């Protein structure tokens, strides 16, 4: 029985006794792949967040969250490159990326380039702000990963998030370069959209990280 024979395994003499083929409900594989990646990341960040919550209030010494953070959403956090300011930049970048994808779907390459670059820029502002915050914490407050539990948890959680932002920015820059070199077209919108899913996830994680670190961690 070789593959040259018919591949319909119907086993019936006449075609009209055959049941109809059951629908497979196959899902689009790109979206499935990225969804599974996001699921993995949810469990990765979930573990770091669980550990962060577990260690709230357990420091034996050293700068405490109330020493180094302002109360959430207080005026100081809105100054340029402070945490609430940065958060706005990161979260709004999700809007720009949606607009970029819509433009790409229509083939409006100029518009795509504009919003795509805006996304990258806003993401970069967030990273810059994270760097400024870390500088302050290290140089002024004397908080590093080895200072106490708060330091270990903070730098690990915020650091991994920032790393994921950086990866997203690198990939988006790659797409930017490819577009400028003429390789990106309307028909690639589906693939570029998958990258936007990753970006939305990174933004979503920030909402959780912000809540845990700057709100719960502050009051805990």
């Amino acid at each position: 029985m070789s593959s040259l024979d018919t591949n319909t395994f119907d086993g019936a003499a006449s075609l009209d006794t055959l049941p109809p083929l059951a629908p497979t409900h196959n899902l689009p594989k790109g979206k499935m792949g990225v969804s599974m990646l996001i699921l993995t990341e949810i469990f990765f960040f979930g573990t770091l967040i669980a550990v962060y919550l577990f260690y709230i209030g357990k420091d034996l010494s050293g700068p405490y969250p109330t020493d180094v953070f302002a109360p959430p959403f207080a005026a100081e956090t809105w100054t340029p490159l402070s945490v609430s300011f940065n958060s706005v930049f990161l979260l709004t970048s999700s809007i720009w990326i949606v607009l970029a994808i819509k433009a790409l779907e229509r083939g409006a390459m100029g518009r795509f380039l504009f919003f795509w670059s805006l996304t990258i820029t806003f993401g970069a502002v967030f990273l810059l702000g994270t760097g400024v915050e870390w500088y302050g914490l290290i140089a002024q407050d004397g908080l590093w990963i080895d200072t106490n539990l708060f330091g270990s948890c903070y730098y690990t959680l915020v650091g991994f998030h920032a790393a994921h932002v950086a990866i997203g920015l690198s990939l988006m820059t790659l797409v930017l370069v490819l577009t400028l070199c003429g390789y990106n077209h309307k028909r690639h919108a589906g693939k570029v959209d998958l990258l936007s899913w990753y970006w939305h996830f990174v933004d979503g994680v920030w909402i959780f990280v912000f809540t845990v670190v700057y709100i719960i961690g502050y009051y805990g």
Partner: protein
Amino acid sequence: MTAAPETPRLLANAPALSKLHQWVVTVDHKKLGLMYIMSGLVFFIIGGLEAVMMRWQLAWSDMGVLMPDEFNRLFTMHGTTMVFFVGMPILLGSANYLVPLMIGTRDMAFPRLNAFGFWLFLLGGLLLYFSYFGGQGLYGMGSAPDVGWFAYAPLTERTFSRGHSTDYWILGLLVSGFGSIATGINLVATTLCMRCKGMSLMKMPLFVWIMLIDAILIVIAMPPLAASQVMLLFDRSLGAHFFDVQGGGSAVLWQNLFWFFGHPEVYILILPAFAFVSEIIPVFCRKVIFGYPLMVAATVAIGFISMGVWVHHMFSVGLSPAVNTAFMASTMLIAVPTGIKMFNWVATMYGGRIRLHTPMLFSIGFLVQFLFGGLTGIMLAVVPFDWQVSDSYFVVGHFHYVLFGGLVFTIFAAIFYWFPKASGKMLSEKLGKWQFWLLLIGFNLTFGPMHVSGMLGMPRRIYTYHADRGWEFWNLLTSIGVIFQVLAVAFFAYNVIRSLRKGKPAGDDPWDAWTLEWSTTSPPPAWNYDVDPEVRSRRPLWDKKHPEDPDWKYE
């Protein structure tokens, strides 16, 4: 249209370097699957040799063959190797090879990601073993890791584990873990996105269903391990305090995080055993699997419940009675769907026409031994009993019964069953039967008495024991069993090498089986199927061979 394609041969008449190059750059799921499995088998031999040395040391009291640190490295490397570099690659490789064939498609969803996953796994394994050479580190201490395969903190902190040995444990597993996750994602996407026409989810072979659940478990259970290892790495290299008790960290936190990964991991390892026998037993009993929908439901239930039992590895840590009781309940609960699967397999045998070829012999070995291991698992779920035998040789006996007597036996069953498809040659039945009986005797002789030494008070991970404990006889039996196992594996290796050269030609369908892979050539062409299959039932080849009584009338 085109001329009939030549039946491809595994070892084509090409110069050696070009053949090697084909394998190194391949993204074909079949080649990658075989590379995964072959690497896993090589690590199996290495892990086995580590066990041989340990059993030599423990054959009698105060043997003095190994120094304590040498022994401690051996049990660490043995456990880590067997779980991460034998179990994982063989299961990922088998799924890689079989899933696209069974669902009637031409490759995995992401072939390049597939290759990436394989090479990461291999790199991780090499990194772990490089520790023997590179781990000397500070004060000349180090070498291979010696912290046990689950590496409890704070033993793994810099204070108590000098040098770099623990860092190699972390890095080897981090790297190979990413590979596993990549392949897990690939398997889920392939199964949910690429089934051939007519193959709805409830018409997939049970193998594919079980590997789907397995892949989802990999995707969700491995990241917590990665996160824990990253935290441990930060403790060791950056001075963080996650598991630094003096700095406010918690030793129990490591246990919780590790076992949150670790328990699903052992289900990740055993589900493929279930997948293998769910395909093999029906074919060798000439009967459809009994209760397919319940088997699917039981697998999904196992997947879910397995995420909620992890504290049963920590019953003696001193957690509250309420916590211990809750996890005892969930642990006992998971026995129910597992038991259901056993009943369904045995029900498949009833009324059948059992052919005792080697794959079926190994499958029966699995049924007998996994039953025993599963029952000792129920005993261990009983918290007061666990308080006596936790961390003793009783547990070592238990998990070897389920992972060796269970998983490894089914791996041999699967190899004997699918080797003809992958290579076009049959393995020798005679050599297979020798291997089976030797392995059966050796395995039971080694791991059966461990339950006794455990109940007589022998803890795990001791490099020696005193003469007055009463453990010598049982340890001697255990060590003698090793000889039979070594012989069995030697028979196996010889069988494989000999059959690759001059095994009987297999043809497309040597076992008269029913799933799609048997409808294509042995070995399959690179593209798997000349024409995309269309199926109307779970056993497309049964429908073809029995047009008067097709499955789709009954499903």
